[in-house]
């Protein structure tokens, strides 16, 4: 009863955390040491250090598409949950 009713909120919360966490590079930089690379680090390194812009751009496009897909999935799931709840 409680879980289905709060599921849209839970999903929204997951999205809200996931979206910024994918792009952050300074938190793993400071806390994660040098061995833990995230997508954000890869993009930043390609752009600012390696100067390999096309590769960095490709990585960021992959990130964007992933985000778009997740947002789309979130919308779909919200609609489905809404129908079941009604």
């Amino acid at each position: 009863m409680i879980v289905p009713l709060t599921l849209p909120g839970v999903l929204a919360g997951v999205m809200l955390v996931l979206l910024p966490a994918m792009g952050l590079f300074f938190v793993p930089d400071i806390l994660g040491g040098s061995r833990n690379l995230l997508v954000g680090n890869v993009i930043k390194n390609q752009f600012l250090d390696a100067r390999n812009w096309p590769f960095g751009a490709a990585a960021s496009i992959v990130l964007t598409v992933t985000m778009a897909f997740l947002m789309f999935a979130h919308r779909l799931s919200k609609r489905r949950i809404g129908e079941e709840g009604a």
Partner: protein
Amino acid sequence: MTRWLPRTYLTLVYILLYVPIVVLVVFSFNESRTGYAWGGLSLRWYEALFNNRAMVNAMWNSLWLALSAATVSTVIGALTALALHRYRFRGKKLLNGMLFVVMMSPEIVLAISLLALFLLVGLQLGYVSLLLAHVTFCLPFVVITVMARLSGFDESLPEAARDLGASDFTMTRTVLIPVIMPALLAGWLLGFTLSLDDVVVSTFVGGPSYEILPLRIYSMVRVGLKPEVNALGTLLLVFSLVMLMLSQWILIRSKR
């Protein structure tokens, strides 16, 4: 069983949230240089902080940037919200959706696209590029805040004002602005905070000519934890608490 379980859980969550902050505040008053041992109470790191010219300079730069970015994005954002609320035009839905895309897309993608754009048009990286970038990512937040306020706006109020002979300007000044004022303030504060602690976008579009606080802290922390950073963190914490209390106070007062 059923009573203490939720309580323990909640306590753990709050401990996890607040212990790092408490540690930061406590160690900012620590006399000793190493971050792990307590060496007595002292204000030396605050002194060191204010004697650090580059740091103070970065602080002023950051404040000025946040002030200007918040103000510009509030003006543009309020006008955008008004247009989206009041008029029907082609591409309105698209425009509305695009705001959410800017808000939801990963910051780093926005950052590199802005960097590529600035280099393409040959803009010198510095204050102007930072301002443009910060206005860009603050804008959707202002627009959404103001639109939420406008959605509860009684449309008969401006009509009544016009009936009573008010010009557009008078109506805006005496009816519209007072009604959306809390949203304007909230949006401005939101923009101010977002701009003040932004690292991702500023790393890409910032230049050496205009150093701002988050980047300064970032480069300091990367080579090892300095106690000055604790002092700075404590000051920023107090500052944001005061801002938060101020905004809450304004909100409560406006509701009366």
